[in-house]
């Protein structure tokens, strides 16, 4: 009996002592945190993609609250979210009608583009393009080592059997990380309302493109002639769509001889 009592007393005493100590420590070393940081953090998408340049979404939330960042910095959040955050912070510094853009791959090469050599080095596009000017004959082509797949924070990109990355539009949050990492600059951001884009970035002359790749833009002008709103021009041997003017009629897609105009 005595032993039990002693044990209980000793343990309670210890508990009490530590409790007091903890209470004192938490008072003494209390750090004032703006409660808005947590709220904003919860509103942010939480993919921690780092596109804003801060350490994850919480870091960005802190920067927003401290006014060292603007809402425009986050390419992922939807307009609704931004509206809520703006209300929370009492600011409005961003075009709230903007829709998250989508990353698209502007190369139709892959296995259809001729190999210059078989690259067997480190599986990283940034190394591959630097090796003897890249493994494809076309110097604008996707080198297919899948670095965009590695950097995508939401696993929206996967390498396909045709040697090209495919970006799943349902998963893409528009963080632009793949755009930044691609050494061939073939990924770019497209407005989600637009359905048509050119799947080639080669400025080579038509004959050279034909030699290098089965699905490159050869600058044949067919799409330019077909377009009812004249939104396609050939710039430096490459068709360029003015997405502002494009009405998604898809007439150009049908006439393209190398099928390098893609439909989302």
């Amino acid at each position, binding site marked *: 009996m005595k032993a039990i009592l002693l044990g209980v007393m000793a343990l309670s005493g210890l508990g009490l002592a530590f409790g007091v100590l903890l209470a004192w420590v938490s008072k003494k070393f209390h750090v004032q945190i703006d409660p808005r940081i947590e709220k904003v953090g919860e509103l942010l998408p939480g993919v921690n993609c780092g596109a804003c340049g801060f350490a994850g979404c919480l870091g960005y939330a802190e920067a927003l609250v401290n006014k060292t960042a603007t809402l425009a910095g986050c390419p992922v959040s939807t307009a609704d979210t931004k509206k809520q955050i703006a209300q929370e912070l009492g600011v409005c510094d961003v075009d709230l009608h903007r829709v998250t853009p989508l990353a698209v791959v502007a190369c139709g090469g892959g296995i259809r583009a001729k*190999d*210059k*050599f*078989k*690259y*067997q*080095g*480190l599986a990283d596009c940034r*190394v591959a393009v630097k*090796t*003897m000017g890249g*493994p494809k004959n076309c110097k604008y082509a996707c080198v297919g080592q899948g670095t965009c797949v590695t950097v995508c924070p939401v696993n929206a990109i996967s390498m396909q059997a045709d040697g090209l990355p495919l970006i799943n539009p349902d998963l893409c949050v528009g963080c632009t990380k793949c755009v930044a990492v691609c050494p061939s600059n073939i990924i770019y951001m497209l407005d989600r309302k637009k359905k048509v884009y050119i799947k080639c970035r080669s400025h080579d002359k038509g004959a050279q493109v034909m030699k290098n790749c089965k699905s490159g833009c050869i600058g044949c002008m067919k799409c330019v002639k077909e377009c009812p709103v004249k939104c396609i021009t050939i710039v430096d041997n490459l068709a360029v769509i003015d997405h502002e003017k494009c009405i998604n009629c898809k007439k150009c897609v049908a006439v393209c001889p190398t099928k390098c105009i893609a439909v989302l």
Partner: protein
Amino acid sequence: MSEKNTSVDLAITSSPHIRAKETTAKIMWSVTLCLIPSGLVSIYAFGLSVLWIILTSIVCAMASEWLFNCYLQKKPNSLMDGSAVLTGLLLAYNLPAGAPLWMAGLGSFVAILFGKVVFGGLGFNIFNPALIGRVFLMASFPVLMTRWPAPFKVDAITAPTPLAVFKDGFSGSPILNPSEIIHYSYSDLFLGLRGGCIGEASVLALLLGASYLMFKKYISWKLPLSFVATVGIFTWIFGGSSFFSGDYILHILSGGLILGAFYMATDYVTGPVTIQGQIIFGIGCGIITSIIRLWGGYPEGVSYSILLMNMGTPLIDRFVKPKRFGDK
């Protein structure tokens, strides 16, 4: 430009274009090979049951590796790199000769799962997997883990290890009556005629294998030496009834010190990368081992000392870096 070229046949990689012949698998299998003499001595001393323990342990380790790595995680087949076999073998060497087979199996399962797979597989584990297995068994089945059969009399007598004799004297060991205490000579200890774990049996056999590893430069002699020397010095100073009178030869030759110092502390993954770091690691292991042996609750402290120093490895690697070329 000429169209005729050999492009598609030629491989393009960045330099260097040649590689040394050493491979991970070769290193792991060599270590495994070097451990075999010690196992043979053990089988000779304790009987065939030892062989079954070793085989069970290895098979279970390989099965666990296959299950977690190849089947569940769909990683490339890693069975042939020898690391699972080595883990299984080392775990078996850390069991007493009379251990039941299920214990060996369970131990290697735990060693692979909690020692390796949960950290991300080979190369990412913090602790030596075999020692994780051993410590798990020690904590779960302390009685089974400390029933040491005496050599050549497997089922007859349960003998204490030399260290337990040393530590507990005549009264501390409840299983024995004083008249049955076996005293070991140094040469018995060296050749392997003593109670203890399977792999600890023969210092001679262990050193034989280790010398091959050192000859091939798979392990550095500096780490084991610093470990063993620290234990020797420490026990010499503090191990006797007065200072500088400890029986350091007994301490060096007995227990798992040689096995631990040459085969487990030298594990690449869980030890420091620089030679200087490895010496610090060895000294740390030596001090902790001696403290546990002399004043701790267990008669043997090699496994705990290595595990504790494994925790310190990232810290050692952080502070002990090679001199940057061009720095004064």
